[in-house]
């Protein structure tokens, strides 16, 4: 927990999480507007929205989405971050909770919401931000390393919980491959019945049930073995690669995308990600834009 890090590393994570969340929110505006038109009888709010009782009025939901996007821009740019960081974290939680309040809990957005909370409550705008203009960049410090370490721990734990759920609810059937095979067959069949795109590989793989036994075992190894990523960068690199490949496999076989890990941003807290930003800033055109 005493990991010292440069301010730039945390700033890079701010830019990555903010950029990801903004693209997500803006790109799905039509979808969020569709949600505001759903019948109130479908409202099953998650924890953060439970005190509301009924769904908020359509106008209120649209305003909150707009505020989340505006604070998201400020969060990403690092403008008045002391206020806009926490505000965006709350706004993103509100919008994503709203998305999860219509009878089905998606599990694709949890980690980005948790990471934005960590970044939003940390001194993440001490470098590469509007707040940091004309200021000397602070020296490496544990206050920049700790939030990243915490984000890494949260990433690891979400995978561990996922692995425990498989052992708990599916047990030996998961290791036998049957649960995985039937889940993939069911999920793709449902997509086909409901007139949606489905995995072209699923039908081919379903004819070879033996393939699902090693897939089931490997899935558990990746999920329950996630804590190894905290042992060091080399371990983190191997584990992140395995977890990313696992998500690619889910896309290939189930046509289900977990955009946050697929973007690799979920695994960014393990690495010296400031080098990415330094490389980008090394391009002369970008340097001119970034220099006050």
């Amino acid at each position, binding site marked *: *927990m*005493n990991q*010292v890090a440069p301010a730039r590393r945390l700033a890079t994570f701010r830019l990555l999480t903010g950029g990801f969340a903004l693209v997500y929110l803006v790109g799905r505006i039509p*979808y969020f507007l*569709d*949600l505001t038109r*759903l*019948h109130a009888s479908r409202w099953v709010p998650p924890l953060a929205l439970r005190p509301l009782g009924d769904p908020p009025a359509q106008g209120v939901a649209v305003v909150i989405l707009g505020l989340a996007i505006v604070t998201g821009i400020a969060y990403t740019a690092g403008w008045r971050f002391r*206020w806009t*960081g926490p505000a965006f974290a709350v706004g993103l939680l509100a919008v*994503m909770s709203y998305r999860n309040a*219509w*009878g*089905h*809990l998606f*599990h694709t*957005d*949890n980690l980005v919401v*948790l990471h934005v909370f960590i970044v939003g*409550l*940390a*001194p993440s705008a001490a470098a590469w931000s509007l707040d940091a203009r004309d200021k000397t960049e602070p*020296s490496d*410090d*544990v*206050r920049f390393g*700790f939030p990243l*370490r*915490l984000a890494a*721990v*949260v990433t690891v*734990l*979400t995978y*561990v*919980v*996922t692995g*425990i*759920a498989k052992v*708990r*609810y*599916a047990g030996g059937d998961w290791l036998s491959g049957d*649960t*995985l095979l*039937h*889940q993939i*067959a*069911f999920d*793709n*069949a*449902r997509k*086909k*019945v*409901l*007139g*949606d795109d*489905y995995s072209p590989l*699923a*039908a081919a793989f*379903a*004819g070879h049930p033996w393939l699902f036994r090693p897939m089931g075992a490997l899935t558990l190894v990746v999920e329950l073995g996630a804590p190894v990523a905290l042992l060091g960068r080399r371990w983190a690199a191997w584990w992140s690669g395995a977890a990313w490949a696992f998500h690619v496999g889910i896309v290939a076989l189930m046509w289900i995308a977990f955009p946050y890990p697929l973007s690799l941003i979920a695994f960014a807290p393990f690495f010296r990600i400031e080098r990415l930003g330094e490389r980008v800033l090394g391009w002369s055109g970008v340097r001119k834009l970034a220099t006050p």
Partner: protein
Amino acid sequence: MTLLTGRSWLRPRSPTLGHRQAARSGSRCREGPLTAAFARRSASYAAGVVTNRGRWVVTVVVGLVVIAPALLADPGDDFPISTYPMFTAERDRVVDIDTAVLVDADGRRRLSPEIVGGTEEIVSAAVTVSRAIADGDVSLARLCAEIAGRVDGPGSVEIVTERHDAVALLQDGVPPVAVTVHERCEAP
């Protein structure tokens, strides 16, 4: 509002501490006069001494919150703290799939997730139909009317459960082995 730094909510215990302690803190300083650097290191270290415990407390609390669903006896799924139960439901090769179809002069047509559930999310559409079936007649009639309002053409909307051999459906497009109609209503 900056909570994870520790400095804004925990004060340094002592303003001056020795070099060895400063070095142990891991704080580094690359520039500035020696005294300023020393003061900065000392303050940083002092803050570190106090907040080290705080950081561990934050980590343990956050970690427990995230992992709690896996440790509790009968946890419910929620957001953003979740049991992550995806892909763990017990399924067989033969499965029941709830959906809605349009029956018109051309026959039986499948409807898109947008028409069935009101959004592009296919899982949401499927869950909406399943919940209406579970909730009974009033919910079924309401959902049927909603879907009928989104259909672009005359015909009958049917809310159905189709029983499929999932693998056969995927491999050869085999039709359902059974269809149960729960609700029927006319599209305008």
